[in-house]
């Protein structure tokens, strides 16, 4: 599977600011792309344009070379799955009920999920290690648990690509690690590609093959994550002076991004 964006440009109707300018990216099977950028820069807008929820002003998204708008919705959402930020709803469903909702694209309008669909939902929960949550109410879960449930829901349609909007935001240390490890496992073991919006450059360095940093002017820097996530690029995108160091623990290299000061390096 190959997912591409070619020269994507977007501006909100009735506004002057070009949110996204000439965005080009490519995601191959089993690869993880992370999207970084400061608050309000347009990361979620980029995801929405990529998935066809918003129409590019110019440029296009392609799945295996076919423009997204030419793929019927039901077919498209069997290949791509979207994982939103974990938020509880007024009406609470059990984890199993929530995960089974992921089978929607495979069912006809008036069809109910059958035993096979429920079995598949449980199998997806088991594959990411959350089967014990199946009867727990979603609004009684921790943020991390709910995020894992949403990932399991996305997995029920057996997608080739996952698109995750800040999956580790608002989570504590351990839950962040659980979610990131899960994404990494899915890409490495099952060849699922993933696009994740994140606020954390070190998370991107940890799990992403490629990275895209969005700047305030709508331009972006795109390439291998170890090349793109540099002190200079982060400084330009976030106006924060940072220092990137590599630490070796038990023969494994970990990257740390240390913010030094909120004034950009150019100001120094």
């Amino acid at each position, binding site marked *: 599977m190959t997912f591409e964006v070619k020269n994507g440009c977007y501006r909100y109707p009735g506004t002057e600011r070009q949110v996204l300018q000439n965005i080009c990216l490519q995601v191959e099977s089993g690869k993880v792309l992370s999207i970084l950028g400061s608050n309000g820069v347009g990361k979620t807008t980029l995801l*929405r344009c990529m*998935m066809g*929820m918003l129409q590019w002003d110019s440029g296009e998204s392609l799945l295996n070379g076919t423009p997204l708008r030419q793929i019927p*919705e*039901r077919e*498209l*959402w*069997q290949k*791509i*799955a*979207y994982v*939103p930020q974990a*938020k509880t*709803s*007024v*009406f*609470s*469903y*059990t984890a199993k*009920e929530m995960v089974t*909702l*992921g089978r*929607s*694209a*495979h069912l006809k*309008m*008036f069809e*109910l*999920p059958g035993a096979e669909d429920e079995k598949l939902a449980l199998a997806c929960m088991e594959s990411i290690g959350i089967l014990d949550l199946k009867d727990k*109410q979603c609004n009684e879960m921790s943020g991390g648990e709910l995020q894992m449930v949403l990932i399991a829901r996305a997995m029920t*349609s057996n997608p080739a690509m996952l698109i995750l909007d800040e999956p580790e935001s608002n989570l504590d240390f351990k839950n962040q690690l659980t979610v990131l490890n899960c994404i990494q496992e899915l890409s490495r073991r099952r060849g699922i590609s993933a696009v994740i919006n994140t606020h954390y450059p070190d998370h991107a360095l940890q799990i992403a093959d490629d990275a895209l940093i969005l700047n305030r002017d709508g331009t972006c820097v795109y390439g291998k994550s170890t090349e793109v996530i540099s002190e200079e690029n982060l400084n330009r995108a976030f106006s924060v002076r940072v220092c990137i160091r590599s630490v070796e623990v038990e023969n494994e290299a970990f990257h740390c991004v240390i913010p030094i000061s909120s004034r950009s390096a150019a100001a120094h």
Partner: protein
Amino acid sequence: MSRATLTIRSRILLLLLPFAVAVICLGIGRYSISVADTVRVLFSPLTGTAAEMDSTQLSVLFGVRLPRVILAMFIGAGLAVSGAAFQGLFTNPLATPDTLGVASGASFGAAMALMFSKNLLAVQISALIFGMCAIILTTLISRQKGKSTIIMVVLSGMVVSSLFQALVSLVKYVADPQDVLPSITYWLMGSLTGISYSSLMLGLPFILVGTLVIFFLRWRLNIMALSDDEARSLGVNVKRIRLMIMFAATFVTASCVSMCGQVGWVGLLVPHVARMLFGSNNKNVVPVSISFGAVFLVVIDTLARSATAAEIPISILTAVIGAPFFILLLRKTGGTQL
């Protein structure tokens, strides 16, 4: 809180419960008939023994009580299921045909039609048109940047409801006080009296069709609790489903209102009880609401016609019983299970 699961046995019970309650209630009234006699008389036309039955019992059951009990079952089921549908649709535990202004809109439509004609079909269509106007108005007022919060939906519903109630008052003000006004006023309070088989045949298909649409879309109703992007990413045509459910629920409400006036509380109370017992999954909430709604209104209507010498308007009873029950429910759950 542990929730019961909807097993095959409980599904059969849910299906049989309204009929069992209906048979018991058919025997209750000024002229009391035992359950065994009720069953015998009810099945006599099928077994060919009608001629051997007591003619008074035959006339009380078939002529007076049966059409009324059938109507109560359909109205109860219809109002409860449209309440469940609106709550799912707006992801709002307080959304009901009453709070969204649909019932008031339909009342205005029906009252206006009643002023000019007694034709039930005209009343139905007029109620449906104004019910739809009300729900569209509430939706448009409450939506800001494509989203509507719980509080905005409730406030918009209140405004739209007040507007249509004022219009109903206007209709009453200009209606003929000798002839039309008393009938509109009594109808507005909610009454199941004087229903005939012919008017049942005209109104029930509307309720049945709307209820069936909601019943078959009940699992899709769960998806409405998610954000639009999320729902769309699950391969669901959100707009089409939303419109279908909205139309079906308004259709049911308008038909109920045109047949027996504004009966409050059913759409709020019954789905909440269903949710408390079986969880929020609409796959369960919808069928349980249909069953409990039918039972609730048959019981209330039996009380309305047999508790005192004079008949009590049904909406007074639903409020008198519904309000304390809802207060109890609120206090018990602290609002968290709503």
